[in-house]
C-alpha cells in the first residue's frame, strides 16, 4: 500500500483535532453543568437551550455553519479552528448532561457534612464533590469521546485533510475508492477500540485505588 503514509497522516490530524476538542470539551462541559446545577438565573436557561439545540444538530451541519457562516457575522476562521470549534461545541453539550447527571445524583448529606466541617463551597467542590463525580462520570465521558471520533469525518466537508478526506483523495487519484476507505475504516475502528480499552484500564485502576463506587 504505497498510500499508507498519507492515510496515517490523515489519522494523525483526526486524532489531534479530536484530542484538543476532548481536552477542552470536558472542562467546558463541567462549567456548563455547574451553571445548570447551581440554577444561576438566565444563564441556566441559556445553557439548557444551548444543549437542546446542539444535541439536535448534525456535526456536518454545524461544521458548515461555523466555517462558511462565520464570515457573515464578521468572524473569519481558518478550517482547523472551525473544525476544533465544531467538535468542541458538539461534545461540550453532551458532556454538560453527563456531568449534570452526576452532580444531581451526588448525596446531599456529604455536602452538609462538608459545610458542618467549615468548608467553603469552592473547597467542598474541589475536595469532596469533584473527586467522586469524575469517577461516576468517567464511563459516560469516554463513551462521548468515541461518539466524537465517530462524528469527526464531518470535518472533511470543510476541507480538513483528516483520515476521511485523505481516503477520498487517494480514491480519487487511483480511481479505486474502496481500498482506501476500507483501510480508513479499520483505522477508525482501532482508534475507537483504543479508547474503550483505555477506559476499562482506568476503571480498573480506579476500582483498585478507591474500592467499588
Amino acid at each position, binding site marked *: 500500500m504505497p498510500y499508507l503514509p498519507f492515510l496515517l497522516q490523515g489519522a494523525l490530524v483526526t486524532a489531534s483535532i479530536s484530542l484538543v476538542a476532548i481536552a477542552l470539551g470536558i472542562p467546558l462541559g463541567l462549567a456548563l453543568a455547574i451553571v445548570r446545577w447551581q440554577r444561576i438565573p438566565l444563564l441556566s436557561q441559556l445553557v439548557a437551550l444551548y444543549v437542546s439545540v446542539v444535541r*439536535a444538530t448534525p456535526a456536518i451541519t*454545524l461544521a*458548515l*455553519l461555523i466555517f462558511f457562516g462565520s464570515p457573515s*457575522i464578521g468572524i473569519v476562521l481558518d478550517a482547523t479552528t472551525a473544525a476544533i470549534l465544531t467538535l468542541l461545541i458538539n461534545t461540550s453539550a453532551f458532556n454538560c448532561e453527563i456531568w449534570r447527571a452526576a452532580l444531581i445524583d451526588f448525596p446531599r448529606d456529604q455536602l452538609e457534612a462538608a459545610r458542618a466541617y467549615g468548608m467553603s463551597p469552592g473547597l467542598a467542590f474541589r475536595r469532596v464533590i469533584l473527586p467522586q463525580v469524575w469517577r461516576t462520570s468517567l464511563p459516560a465521558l469516554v463513551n462521548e469521546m468515541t461518539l466524537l471520533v465517530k*462524528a469527526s469525518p464531518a470535518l472533511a466537508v470543510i476541507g480538513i485533510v483528516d483520515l476521511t478526506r485523505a481516503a477520498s483523495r487517494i480514491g480519487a487519484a487511483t480511481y479505486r*475508492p474502496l481500498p482506501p*476507505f476500507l483501510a480508513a475504516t479499520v483505522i*477508525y475502528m482501532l482508534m475507537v477500540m483504543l479508547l474503550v480499552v483505555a477506559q476499562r484500564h482506568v476503571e480498573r485502576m480506579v476500582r483498585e485505588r478507591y474500592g467499588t463506587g
Partner: protein
Amino acid sequence: MIRDFAVALAHYDAYLNGLWNTLWLSAATLVLASLAGAAVAALMLARNKAMRLAAAAFVDAMRCVPFLLFAYLVYYGLPALSLQLDSWACGLIALVIYHTAYMAEIVRGAWTNLSREQIEAGRAYGFAGFPLFRRIILPQLFFASVPVIGNQSIYILKDSAFLMIITVPELTFAASSVQSTYFVPFASFVIAMLLYWLVTLGIEAAVKRVELAAEVRRG
C-alpha cells in the same frame, strides 16, 4: 443579516423538500432497523454459539465505525459487487444496516432486563406462544426501550445529514445548495439547524407521551 434570512426563506420550498426527505429517510430507517435489530438481538441470544458470536461481532464492529465511512463503503462497495444502485438506495441501505446494530443492542438490553416473574405469571395464567409474546413480553420490551429508541431516533436523524456527501438531497444538502447559489451561508444553515431542532423536540415530546401512557397502564 435580516436580508440574508429573507433571501433564504424565499426558497422555503427547498428546505421543506429537504426536510421531507430527511424525515422519511429517518422514519423508514427507524422502522426497518427496529425490525432487523430485533432479529439480530434474537441471534445474539440464540443457543447456537456460532450465531451468537457472528451477531455480536456485527454489532461490535458497527459500533466502532463512523457512519460516514460505512456509507462510503456501501456507496463504493455495492458497485464492486456489481450492484448498481442510486444514491437514495445506497443511503437508505447504509442507514438501516448501521442502525440495525444499535437497535439490536437496545432490544438485547431490554430483553435481558425483562423480569422473568412476569413471564412466569403470564404462563401461570395460561398464556403461551404468540399471545404470551404479544400480550406480556412485547408491551414490556416496548415501554422499557422507548426512551433509548427516542435517543437513537435523534442519532438516525443526525446521521442522515451525512448522506449529503453521497448527494442525497436531504435537509443539509438543501441548505448547502441554497447557500452556494445565493451566498447566504449563515442564514441557510441556521434555518436547517432550527428545523433539525424542531424535529428533535417532536421526538422528545412523543417519547414523553408514551412514557405517560406506560405509567397509566401500570396504574
